[in-house]
């Protein structure tokens, strides 16, 4: 925490990133109070209106207030990013950890499988899964996790392999510690850093990827406000620039914030890089 505060003071980008993300998290939490209109309320008399004092971000083709939809949409995007990263990091780390710790043929088979998933073009794989299983929020998240986990598995495996040869692991084994105990007490604490770096760097990517899938119509069904789907509405109403501009800016700002934080945490946890930046 002390380190964190120091970074906040000394690393401008980290401070900006944290501020952006904290703002978005607060907006997501208090969305219902902040949104000036009901995000689902249709008002055909007010459709396709440019930004004005009444509707700061304008209205879409059903007369819904875009500002309200952007505000409420933050909930879905942020939780999708966090859920995907958490689940993928957990599954991937366990998978890679087992592969690295056990080694041998098991390791070989497990990692070839992970590489096969990685070799698959990510967007096409996610789209196929989405189309095959049908568009729903749950299926979209499943597709995101399926695409994301192998990266964690690879990183975790390489870290575990480099750690398990260390003397302190050997001595723990010599003292008669069980495999489970070695994993939880000796190896896990030393690997968590690498996974956290990867995960924070990944959150921005996953929010982007989620919005990409929702842009393609694979997400929660239409009336719900979702940034990617809103940009897609904007493409259908090409001349009304405000419809796609504002949700796109929302995606951009949160991805920038997440990337700044990820960079900062990498600098903090990776001492080799720390002196470089």
């Amino acid at each position: 925490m002390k380190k964190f505060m120091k970074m906040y003071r000394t690393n401008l980008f980290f401070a900006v990133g944290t501020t952006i993300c904290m703002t978005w998290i607060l907006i997501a939490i208090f969305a219902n109070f902040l949104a000036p209109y009901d995000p689902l309320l249709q008002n055909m008399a007010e459709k396709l209106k440019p930004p004005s004092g009444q509707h700061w971000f304008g209205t879409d083709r059903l007369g819904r207030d875009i500002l309200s939809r952007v505000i409420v949409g933050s909930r879905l995007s942020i939780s999708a990013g966090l859920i995907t990263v958490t689940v993928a990091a957990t599954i991937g780390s366990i998978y890679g950890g087992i592969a690295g710790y056990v080694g041998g043929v098991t390791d070989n088979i497990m990692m070839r499988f992970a590489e096969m998933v990685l070799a698959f073009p990510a967007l096409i794989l996610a789209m196929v899964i989405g189309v095959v299983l049908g568009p729903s929020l749950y299926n979209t998240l499943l597709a995101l996790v399926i695409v994301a986990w192998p990266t964690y598995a690879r990183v975790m495996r390489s870290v575990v392999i480099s750690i398990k040869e260390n003397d302190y692991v050997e001595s723990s084994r010599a003292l008669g510690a069980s495999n489970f105990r070695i994993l939880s007490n000796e190896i896990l604490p030393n690997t968590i850093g690498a996974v956290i770096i990867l995960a924070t760097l990944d959150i921005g990517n996953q929010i982007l990827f989620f919005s990409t899938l929702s842009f393609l119509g694979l997400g929660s069904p239409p009336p719900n406000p979702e940034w990617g789907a809103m940009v897609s509405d904007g493409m259908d109403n090409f001349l009304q620039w405000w419809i796609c501009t504002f949700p796109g800016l929302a995606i951009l700002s949160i991805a920038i914030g997440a990337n700044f934080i990820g960079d900062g945490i990498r600098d903090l946890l990776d001492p080799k890089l720390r002196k470089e930046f």
Partner: protein
Amino acid sequence: MNLAKFIVKRLLFTVMLLIGVATSVFILSKMVPGDGVSSYLSPRSLANEQIVEAFKVKWGLDKPLIVQYVYYMKNLLQGNLGQSIRTGNQVVSDLVKNYPATIELASMSILLATFFGVLFGIVSATKRNSLIDQSLRAVSVTGVSVPSFWLAILVLYVFYYKLGWAPGTGRMSLGIQAPRHITGLYVVDGFITGNYEAMLDSLSHLILPSIVLASFTMGLITRTTRASLLETLSTDYIRTAKAKGLPKAPLMYRHAMGNAAIPVLTVIGVGFGNLLGGMVLVETIFAWPGIGQLAFQSVKSLDFPSIIGVSLLIAANYAVINIFIDVMYGVIDPRVRYDR
């Protein structure tokens, strides 16, 4: 191990990888409810049980899964990708038709991304922590954070609709004939055949989509160049060279750049692989008749033969580029040995 052996080993591994990709598409295609019969037959035929049965017998769908898989693999290994359900063409001919458009766009994007990325990275590293370094860092983070589909719509709105500086979607303007087919790359074909009107027209159509696509890769290249150059500059041999009084320019260009180049080269290669396979959205928005658009349309209509073709092509691209990068390592840095 020598270079040839290394390449052969990597190619064998690539073939295994492609078999894996093909297998996973097969599994996915079997997860579609009703064997995917519904995407082939009309609703009326679907209601008739006899027709459905006959269809299944014709395509071997009545056989056990493992037999189907063996047939499927046998065909693939003979290079028979089958017929696209959506277009009715051979999958291979669809791929051959669309691939040049993607290569042209990806090459243009990677040129832009490399030029600006390396330039920005070098400026950033030499003027470290200055205002210009900070702003370039902000630019590169914005580049990797911007949603490409949104940027695509935005630049079309501003530069095509509002300002009229750039042409709209597609590879050529209406009324201009595509140049005679030689490579399939319109700019190159136009140049070779002396059809400069077509060459300039297709070049101007490349500008907007390639800027959109370059933004992400440029961000990555800038960051990598900066970090790698800074690391090299802090090594002992550079300090020695500095102490000997070597001027700044040869120090940078002759001594530091070579060693800083390997990570940058990797990012450029990976970026090119991403561009060749990851342009689904931008190609669709710009109505660019390439592999990405083909992928999008195939997935939307669950045209599995075509999905397999596209996936295999993209995975093969990645693999070949990776092998090429590994070989280049040895060219740049003679210490690298291929004996893993």
